[in-house]
């Protein structure tokens, strides 16, 4: 079984992790949203979710959100970055 996220993520994932995630998906979606997912479908989604999980964990190591006390206003960042050093015109 390989992950479905292209060249950067084509390592096989652990069978146990995928099974746990698939079970979690089926139960969670049923409990929270009242929808049932086929086991095969849940297994496919589990692969993708595991990739997301590993990527965000890695990024948490790089991006120190705990010390980021700026207001969470992305649009202010866009305006600030439009005018930061190197901008042309």
């Amino acid at each position, binding site marked *: 079984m390989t992950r*479905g*996220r*292209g*060249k*950067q*993520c084509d390592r096989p994932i652990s069978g146990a992790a995928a099974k746990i995630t698939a079970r*979690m*998906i089926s139960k*969670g*979606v049923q409990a*929270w*949203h*009242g*929808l049932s*997912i086929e086991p095969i*479908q849940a297994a*496919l*989604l589990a692969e*993708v*979710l595991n*990739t*997301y*999980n590993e*990527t*965000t964990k*890695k*990024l*948490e190591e790089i*991006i120190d*959100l705990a010390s*980021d006390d*700026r207001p*969470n*206003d*992305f*649009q202010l*960042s*866009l*305006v600030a*970055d*439009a005018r*930061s*050093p*190197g*901008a*042309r*015109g």
Partner: protein
Amino acid sequence: MTGEPWRMSLVEAADAIRRKEISSLELTETCLARIECLQPTLNCFLTVDREGVLEAAKAADAAVGRGDDIGPLHGVPLAHKDIFHRKGQITTCGSKRVQQPVANKTATVLSRLSGAGALYLGSLNLSQLCYNPYGFNNDYGHCRNPWNSEHISGGSSSGSCAAVSARLVFGALGSDTGGSIRLPASMCGVVGLLPTYARVSRFGFVPQAISLDNVGALARTVRDCARLLKVIAGPDPNDPTCSSEPAPDYESTLDDGIAGCKIGIPSEVIYDNVTSEVENIMENSLDIYRDLGCELVDVTLPNPSELNILADIVELSEVAAFHAKGLRDNAEAYHEIFRNRIFLGMCIPASKYVEALRMRARMLDRYIAEVFEKVDVLHIPVMPAPVPTISQIEETLSKRPDLNLELVGRNTQMFNYLGLPALAVPGGFASNGLPIGFQLVGRPFSEPILLNIGHSFQAATDYHSLVPEP
């Protein structure tokens, strides 16, 4: 005026009306004739308002005759992706079975186009609920590529791109949450502009993922896109999320020289999966920029895969929240690709969604520091390979229904997450006869620079003036 007025660009058409060289009625009739001829093959339109647009064209001509003060798009017929509300009409969002209510408002962008004198020709096909990059729609039928109807048109703004490419209409609006303007623009050989996040009002627009959604323009030339953007961009009191930055006159800087501009070429990752055919077209376009006096600079990009995953987390969470009830009530109305994506969104913890949103400003800062403090724009392929056929995509999806953007590349979605503007420009043709585009990406609010650099390419080439024969 004699000849074939449908061959004109949007700006040429608007200027010809202003100079009384052609009437709006003549232009509109030429569009309607082409729609009648090509719609059965291309399936671009969901509705054509024949009587309404002919009446509007006559009124536009009367205003010219009276010497009224007319707008920059006066008398020019346009049509739009069917996700923009028109008061009293149903906005289908490309779905017959997921019912939408009758709209009680008109989208700001449509009001602004109308205020500038544009005519409304009809609503355009799209991927069902905007949710696949191929132009597939099981309810209304797939939109077809004008260069070869066996090939996908791309999506989700499929009808917008195919109709502009086939000269059924002079310009169109689309929307882009992960590539929905740039992918079909590249596949159909038209210019597609994704503006800076929230540069354009989204009032009266059916959202997909509101943190990533953008409204943008599709047209035959960069100059056409510049004119459309000037009309639709700018603050909107009805949309508090719309940027308060004033919109400049994007046409006024199009002819500025670009000698000395620094164009960034990603040296890795982006090109890992690119076919040699696409790579050759990218190199040819860069040769043209080199001849125009630009400096080509190798740049190392922050990991695109990580950015795409953060974009996925935001997009899937928001789409799932928007459609969860609809899926519960009427699951069969949703295409399998869409259902899988919604299920995925339902499984993402809320804490991860919030984290992905909080990381956005940090990632943008990093991107600016690592890329745009070195270059003015980035030049990258929109797609890694030539346009596939419909049957190729259908066959792959039958085995891997969880795949979505992966089949046409991952070079577009990261810029929605970063909120950066990107301009897709036709860059040449593959051996299968279908167009290949490149995208120019810039800092926030750098649309004047992107348009200037894109226009310079079109001034030196003629890809945009070639007409498909479906």
